[in-house]
C-alpha cells in the first residue's frame, strides 16, 4: 500500500473511558475518493476526528504520505495538507465570508487566491461581505468546503456534507464534490446519504459499532442489498 496518501492502521479511540473505535484501519490512495459509511453511532465522525488530531487515538498509527501524524495537534496536521470539514461546519458567525476564507488561508503554504475560490463558488462572492451567521445551510457548507480548498488541502475529510440540506443544494454540492474528485483531489467522505455518496466515490468502507466490517466498490455495495440492510438500513 505504498501508493496510499493516507494510511490508518488499527487505531483505537475513546471519548473519556468510552471505547468508540476498535482497531479501525483504512487507506485512501492519491486522487481517490473514498466513502466511509455506517449508521449513526458507528464511529464515522470519530474516525475523521481521530485522523485530524482533534481526538488523539490511544493506539494505532496514521500515516500521511508516509509520515506518522497520530498524536500531533490539529494545526500541525492541517499544515501538512490534511483538512477536516466538520459535520457542524463550524463557520465563524461573527466573521464575514471573506474573513472566514482569509483566516483559513493564513497558514497555508500555497493558498488559493480569493478570486479562484469565488470562481469555484460564485455564490460566496455575492455573499462575501455577509456575516457567517447570515448564511443559509447550503452556503455555510460551501464556505466550509471553500475553507479547505483555499488551503489547497491535499486530503479533504468531509463529514456529512449533505446533512440537513435541501435536495437541490445536495445536487449542487454533489457536483462540486465530483469536480474536486475530477481535479484529482483526495477525499474521504462520511455520509448518511448513501446514494449521494456512492455517486462520486471510488471505494467504500463500512463501519459498524466501531469496527470496520466491509470494504469494496460502490458497484459491489449496490449489488448486495443484504449488506446495505445489515449495516446501513434498518
Amino acid at each position: 500500500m505504498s501508493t496510499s496518501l493516507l494510511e490508518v492502521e488499527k487505531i483505537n479511540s475513546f471519548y473519556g473511558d468510552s471505547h468508540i473505535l476498535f482497531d479501525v484501519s483504512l487507506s485512501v490512495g492519491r486522487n481517490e475518493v473514498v466513502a466511509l459509511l455506517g449508521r449513526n453511532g458507528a464511529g464515522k465522525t470519530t474516525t475523521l476526528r481521530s485522523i485530524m488530531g482533534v481526538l488523539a487515538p490511544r493506539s494505532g498509527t496514521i500515516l500521511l504520505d508516509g509520515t506518522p501524524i497520530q498524536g500531533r495537534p490539529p494545526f500541525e496536521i492541517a499544515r501538512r495538507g490534511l483538512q477536516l470539514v466538520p459535520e457542524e461546519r463550524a463557520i465563524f458567525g461573527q466573521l464575514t465570508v471573506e474573513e472566514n476564507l482569509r483566516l483559513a488561508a493564513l497558514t497555508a503554504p500555497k493558498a488559493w487566491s480569493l478570486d479562484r475560490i469565488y470562481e469555484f463558488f460564485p455564490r460566496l462572492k455575492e455573499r462575501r461581505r455577509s456575516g457567517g451567521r447570515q448564511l443559509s445551510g447550503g452556503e455555510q457548507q460551501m464556505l466550509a468546503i471553500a475553507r479547505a480548498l483555499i488551503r489547497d488541502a491535499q486530503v479533504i475529510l468531509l463529514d456529512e456534507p449533505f446533512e440537513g440540506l435541501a435536495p437541490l443544494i445536495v445536487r449542487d454540492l454533489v457536483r462540486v464534490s465530483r469536480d474536486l474528485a475530477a481535479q484529482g483531489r483526495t477525499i474521504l467522505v462520511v455520509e448518511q446519504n448513501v446514494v449521494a455518496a456512492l455517486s462520486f466515490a471510488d471505494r467504500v468502507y463500512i463501519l459498524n459499532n466501531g469496527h470496520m466490517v466491509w470494504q469494496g466498490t460502490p458497484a459491489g455495495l449496490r449489488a448486495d442489498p443484504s449488506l446495505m440492510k445489515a449495516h446501513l438500513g434498518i
Partner: protein
Amino acid sequence: MRARFWPEAAMVAVLLLAPLVLPRLGFSYDLLQRILDWGLIGLGFDLLFGATGLLSFGQAAFFGTGGFVAAYLLLHHVLSSVWLALALGTLAAGLFGLAVGWLAVRRIGIYFAMITLAFGQMAYFLENSPLAAYTGGENGLPGVPVPMLGSYKIAAGMPMYWALAVIFLAGFVLARRILHSPFGAVLRAIKGNTARTGMTGHSVPAYKLAVFVIAALYAGLAGGLLGVFQSYMPPEAFSLDTSGQLVVQTVIGGVGTLVGPLLGATIWLWLRDNLQQVPHIGALWKLILGLIFVALVVMLKRGIAGEIRWAFSRRRLASAEAGVPEEAGEAAVMPPEAAALPMQAPLVVARADAPALRAIGLSKFYGGLHAVEGVSFDVRTGSIHAVIGPNGAGKSTLFKMLTDEVSPTSGDVLLFGQRVTGLGPTHTAQLGIGKSNQLNQLFLDLTVTENLRIAALARARGTFRADLWRAADSIAPVERQVAAAMDTVGLTHRADVPVHVLPYGEKRRLEIGIALAIGPNVLLLDEPLAGMSPAERVATRALVREIGRTRTLVVVEHDMDAIFELAERITVLYEGRLLADGTPEEIQRNQAVQDAYLGGLHEHEPA
C-alpha cells in the same frame, strides 16, 4: 456517613488545649480570638465554596454588615444586650446575602466571582461614604461593649477566648451537620454535577441561594463578634482584602474540610503578628504566603487539612479499588429482575384515556434552522417506545423537549394528560419523567450509593427543603429506594465505591440507575447502549427490558437490533419531521424509512 463524632471531640480538645500550649509559640489571646473569628466566617465560606463549589469574593460585605449593624445598635443604645445585637447583625447580613445571592446564584463560575466581588466593593463604598454618619466612615466605630453572661461580664483576654471558642464550636457542629444532612448532600451534588442535580428534581438555584445566605449568616456573626472582642469595629472589615484573605486562608488550610479556614487563619495571622516586627523580612511573609498559595493551586494540592484527609481516605479508596476487577464480569452482572421501587412519582392522571406521554405538534427552530418541526406522537402507558432516525433528524432536540430541557418554539408535551411544557427539567422530574443521558452525567467524586441517594432524595423531599440537622442516610424510604435502584442496575457490590473508579459499563448502568431512583412513571433513555462492548450490550438490553416491565420507557438508540427486539412501537424522525410511526414490523416494511436510512429519498423527491 455513619454518625462519627471524633471530629467534634478533636475540636473540643484543640480549643481546650490551645490557650495552654499556643501562647508559648507567640499566640496572644487577642491572636487566638482573631483566628477563631476568621475560622467562623470560614465555616460558612467553606460550605459555599468547598461543598457547593461557589467561589465568592464578596464575603467581606456580610462580615462588615454583621459587624456594623451590631456595633451601631449597641453604641447608639438601641439595644443593651450584646447577644441580641449580634443576632440582629447576623440577621441583617443574612438579608443582605439574600439580596446579593438572588442576583449572583443565577450565574456560574466567572460571573459569580465577579458579581460577588463587585457587591463586596459596593458595600465598602456604602459604609465609607453615604452611611458614614452611622458607621463612622473611615474611623469605624470604637467602644463596642463586651457581652454579659447574667451578671458576669465577659472581659477581654481569657474569658473572651472561651466565649468565642464556644460559639465557634457551635458553628462547627452545625456546619458539620449541614454538610452531612440531605441538604448538604444536594450541595455536594451541585458541586459535582450541577446540571444532573437539577435534572433529578432538585431546585439548584434555591439550594445555592440557601447556602449563600448561610455563608452570609456565618460571616455576619463573625463580623459582629469582631467588633465585640476588639471593642472596635474597623472599616477594613468591608475591604476587598478581607474577602481575599479568606479565600487564601481557606485554600492554604484545605478547601472543603471546614477546619481549613481555621488552619489557614492560624498560619496567616501568626506570621503577620510575629514577622511584622522582624526588620528584614517584615513585609515578605505575605509574599511568601502568596507564592505558597499559587503553588498549592498549580499543583492541585488540597491544603493542609485536605492533604491529611486525603492521606487517610486514600487507604480506604485503595481497598475499594482493589475490589474493582478490570472490566468486572460483564455478562455476569445480569440483573435478575427489577426490584420494585418504594417511592414512585405520584401519578396524576388528568384524563383516564390519556397516554403516558403525548407530544403535540412539537417544533424547535434555532434561527432559520428547523431542528424539529410539527412532531406529534403518543407513548402508550406501560410500553417501550423507540425514537429513531438518521443523524441530524432531531432526536436529541425532541428528547430534550420531552423533559423541557429545551423549550419548544411551539407545541406541547402532556404527561398523563397534564401539560409539562415550560416547567423546566427540575419540575418535569418531580412530575415523574426520568431521563438517562447519552453522555454519562454522574457525580464522580461520590460513591454509587450517594449518587443514587441524590436522586431518591429529590423524590422524597421535593424541589427544596432546608433539613439541615438530620443525617442524609437517615430517611428510611430513601435508603430502600437506593437499594432497590442499585439492585435493579446490578451495582450492589459496588455500593461504597467512588464512581470515578468504576469501569465504563458500570458507569453507564449507574446513569440509568439515577434516572430510575427518582421513581419516574415515564423513563427516557438516550442511547443507553452508547459506547458499550458487545457483552455489556447484551446485559444492558436485558436490563432495559426488565425496567420496561414495570414502567413506560422511551428509548433513543442507534443499535437497530436492540430497538427491534425491545420496542413495541417506533417513531421515526427524518430531517426534523415525523416520517413514520408504527409497530416494528410496519416500520421495517416502510419504504420511506428504508430510503431515509439509505439516503435515497432525495432521488425520489421532485426538485
